[in-house]
């Protein structure tokens, strides 16, 4: 049972690696394409995985940022993510893990409530982003944001570390919007 560790290898020069974990293959593929199309000073590697643990027979560079993508329309993707979380070392959660929820727009088809994902992200003290990955414009902006986060997590941005970014993105318990 191999556990992913954040600093297990030396970094490659000028390279940043991101790992996208989700059961939704097509969406991940499209997101990876959008990310690779972004122009960025460092070289990007995008790895896709359905779930953790990763097969140990492949050599891969050290991973700088893990993004867990949850599809709010299927309970299975949430389960998958929760199980994969057990194979991640605790020190990853110091800013190198991020949750992404897709499909929040179509409320009628959501089988997972908005709040479930929020509590999950809150338990693991990691930021939660919402995006409808099916629509191209939103996907492109999300890819831009992820690339920026990746650069910070890989240390390519001087002056700010993954942990400081995390503390900027922390949000305390938010009140429910029902009383508005």
């Amino acid at each position: 049972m191999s556990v992913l560790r954040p600093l297990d290898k030396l970094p490659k020069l000028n390279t940043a690696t991101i790992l996208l974990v989700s059961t939704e293959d097509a969406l991940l593929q499209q997101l990876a394409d959008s990310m690779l199309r972004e122009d960025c000073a460092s070289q990007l590697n995008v790895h896709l995985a359905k779930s953790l643990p990763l097969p140990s027979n492949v050599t891969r560079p050290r991973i700088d940022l893990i993004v867990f993508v949850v599809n709010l329309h299927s309970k299975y993707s949430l389960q998958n993510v929760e199980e994969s979380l057990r194979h991640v070392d605790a020190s990853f959660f110091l800013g190198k893990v991020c949750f992404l929820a897709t499909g929040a727009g179509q409320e009628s088809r959501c089988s997972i409530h908005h709040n479930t994902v929020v509590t999950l992200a809150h338990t693991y003290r990691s930021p939660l982003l919402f995006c409808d990955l099916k629509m191209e414009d939103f996907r492109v902006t999300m890819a831009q944001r992820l690339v920026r986060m990746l650069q910070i997590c890989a240390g390519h941005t001087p002056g700010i570390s993954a942990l400081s970014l995390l503390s900027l993105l922390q949000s305390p318990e938010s009140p429910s919007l029902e009383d508005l």
Partner: protein
Amino acid sequence: MSMNQQDLDPVNTADVDDVADAEKELIEECEEIWKDMEECQNKLSLVGTETLTNSNAQLSLLIMQAKCLAAELNQWQKETPKIIPLNEDVLLTLGKEEFQKLRHDLEMVLSTIQSKNEKLKEDLEREQQWLDEQEQILESLNTVYNELKNQVVPFSESRIFNELKTKMVNIKEYKETLLFTLGGFLEDHFPLPDGKVKKKKKNLQEPTAQLITLHEMLEILINKLFDVPHDPYVKISDSFWPPYIELLLRNGIALRHPEDPNRARNGYGSVSLTVILQSQ
């Protein structure tokens, strides 16, 4: 624990020989830093792994975050800014890059400010127009006010009296039409039972007294309400047909007296009955 990798970015150098010295210097520096990193990596690989579950995640992560933030803070406080090697070529190349970036940023700032300027001009025009319109409204309202003030007709009792009389006549006419239509409507849809009672209820008592129409019942209730406001109760006599009494009670148009079940009064909700004419 994050490395400042700016030095590792590929530096575009011209193919000049005396640049080779600058390169050597930089590469030596990089090698030193790399050796430091390898040492740190070795130390790190000795640290064990730890996984989390949902229940213990929050607490342990918070503790870990606090420790790491404190360590980072420490590191920042101890650190002194490092100077890049004061080599002419390095400085030149870095300088060129910085100026390129600066030029790009300034161009963006220029275009933003130009668009902001235009937007401000538009806003100014719009606000000016609104201000003018509001001043015009203020003027016209003032003129209307003055006109009305000067238009005050000398107070004459007889004129007011006549106005009131015409109003009353109009309203009385309206009331008559309403009552007439109400009467017609009630007659059509709530008639008195005639003698053709179904044969199977032979033991039904024949009504002993003369039944009055629903219209008359309502009139009695309303009149009592206006004539004797402090005791607007009407005694239920045999001339009221029981099913109609039930109808009035069930729809809230009439209320029983709290103590005496034989008396009823008008419920307020019905004072404004709207007549719906079915135009079939």
